[in-house]
């Protein structure tokens, strides 16, 4: 078990740490001189967590310091994001946020204790997760055009599932509904798992969700996918057309994950973190693992802090009108 060796190393570490606490003065070395804490505002094993772990494990090598992931859950990720916004801006506390915490939260939570643009320094975009329009396997429409017509005609009857207020599935379906100008009944579930269960069981009609969990279900034929809301088809689902191909080009949505530091972190630190992240995204293993998840890896132009700042700005502008009337 972890115990014996961990115990021994642990005991040594304690002894060393307490020694160092007194011996080592605060030397002005180049960043980073100690371990970095990466806050992930969702549970371990979730999509954001997985992306963060894959990228940070490589970044840690590049930076020569360990990056410890701390999962802080609660209130759609806003609890953790608030904590990160208030952390010391020394580059040792970072956060991997996503579309929910750093864009959709602005209209969703009127009393939000932070502002994604004002309280954070963007570092880099890590990955985008495409969103799919999914339906139960015996839902009448055959393709996206029929789906749009059917849902518009039966807006009173259809049920859309989502994984809870503020979740990616909820937010993206709201976007779809605002584009189609309908207000069907949204049935909330407690997370993606139960929502998928209900869709597989045919208790609800359709939902929008991230690609990760949907691929095996689609391949097994337990549910069907109408379209993927990205400009290009995804290699893990080559047969699913894009929304542009299928006739609904305005519906574009991706759940993106990006790295942020608290406001006031020095530009030099941001630059070195960005360089490490970019290096990680160029690494073949990292690439392969992200692609396995169905993620879209950002292009070099999208990886700069400036590009991320623009993305956050645009995303807030995009979600605010969609989500404002909902709350």
């Amino acid at each position, binding site marked *: 078990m972890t115990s014996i060796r*961990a*115990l021994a190393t642990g005991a040594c570490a*304690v002894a060393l740490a307490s020694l160092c606490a007194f011996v080592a*003065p605060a030397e002005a070395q180049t960043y980073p001189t100690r371990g970095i804490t990466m806050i992930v505002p969702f549970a371990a094993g979730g999509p954001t967590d997985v992306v963060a772990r894959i990228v940070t494990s490589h970044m840690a090598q590049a930076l020569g310091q360990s990056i410890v992931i701390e999962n802080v859950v609660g209130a759609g990720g806003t609890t953790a994001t608030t904590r990160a916004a208030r952390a010391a801006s020394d580059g040792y506390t970072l956060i991997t946020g996503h579309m929910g915490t750093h864009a959709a939260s602005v209209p969703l939570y009127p009393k939000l204790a932070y502002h994604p643009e004002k309280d954070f320094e963007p570092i880099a975009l890590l990955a985008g997760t495409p969103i799919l329009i999914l339906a139960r396997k015996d839902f009448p429409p055959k393709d996206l055009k029929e789906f749009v017509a059917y849902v518009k005609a039966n807006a009173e009857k259809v049920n859309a599932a989502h994984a809870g207020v503020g979740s990616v599935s909820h937010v993206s379906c709201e976007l779809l509904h605002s584009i189609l100008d309908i207000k069907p009944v949204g049935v909330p579930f407690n997370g993606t798992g139960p929502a998928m269960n209900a869709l597989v069981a045919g208790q609800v009609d359709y939902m929008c969700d991230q690609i990760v969990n949907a691929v095996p279900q689609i391949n097994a034929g337990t549910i069907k996918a109408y379209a993927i809301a990205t400009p290009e088809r995804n290699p893990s689902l080559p047969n699913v057309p894009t929304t542009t191909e299928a006739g609904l080009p305005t519906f574009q949505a991706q759940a993106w994950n990006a790295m942020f530091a608290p406001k006031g972190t020095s530009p030099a630190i941001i630059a070195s973190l960005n360089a490490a992240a970019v290096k990680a995204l160029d690494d073949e293993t990292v690439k392969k693992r992200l692609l396995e998840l169905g993620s879209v890896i950002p292009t070099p132009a999208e990886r700069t802090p400036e590009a991320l700042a623009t993305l956050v700005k645009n995303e807030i502008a995009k979600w605010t009108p969609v989500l404002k009337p909902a709350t």
Partner: protein
Amino acid sequence: MAETMGHSATATRNTSVAIGFCLLAIAPQIFEFIWSIGTIFGWGAGRGPATVLISHATALVAGAPAALIAAAGGDTKKASSDVLLALIYSYPILAVAIVTLFMTIRSAQDYVGGVILMALALFALWASSDLQGMRGFSFGAGTAPRMFGGLLVALSAGIALTGLLTDGPGMSHYSWRGPMFVMASIVFFALAIRPLGLVVSAFVSFMIAATGSHETRWVEAAIVGACLTVGCALLFPYVLGLPMPMFPRFLNP
């Protein structure tokens, strides 16, 4: 343990129960007042003590009756949260307190238990009063809390009634030493774990908790406390890998 009080409930006893209920009726107001004292020193945000005192006093004395009269007159103006607290929570409990004066309590355990539970239910009703109710066929956020709050008021009234109608045990004895020191130990741990780390907070909390029993032998407790602290310091962060601070923050640069 239960000394049966039965019919021996005397008038003086009832008065003290009634006074207790009166205090219970304004307990949230008192709590907010005490809490608000902190704002003078800049702890937390919220209303200052003077504002709290004045607004609750006016709500209790003037606002609530006014709102009652207005409601009777068909005027459905939205009452402030303080007035609602007085109306939904304080008045019913005060009414119960007055009724208590004229009753023979046959089982104080049930009667007092029922009334306190009713107070909790009424408080929940007030706390969920600002939430949205039914929207067409779908439940609002407030529907279920209000439903269960109402149900609990009815059930607790039933329990209190049982205490009036059937004989049963009287009030059990509450001791103060155990609860106080155990609570103090827990609160100390909660406040100290972040700034002081596991080692200091676990040991000090152990000693505070140990004070709660008069059987405690100090040397023995200190030795066990130290061993336990070392054990915890190895077990939780290393074996189970739980991230928690070990030593006081000021020792780390």
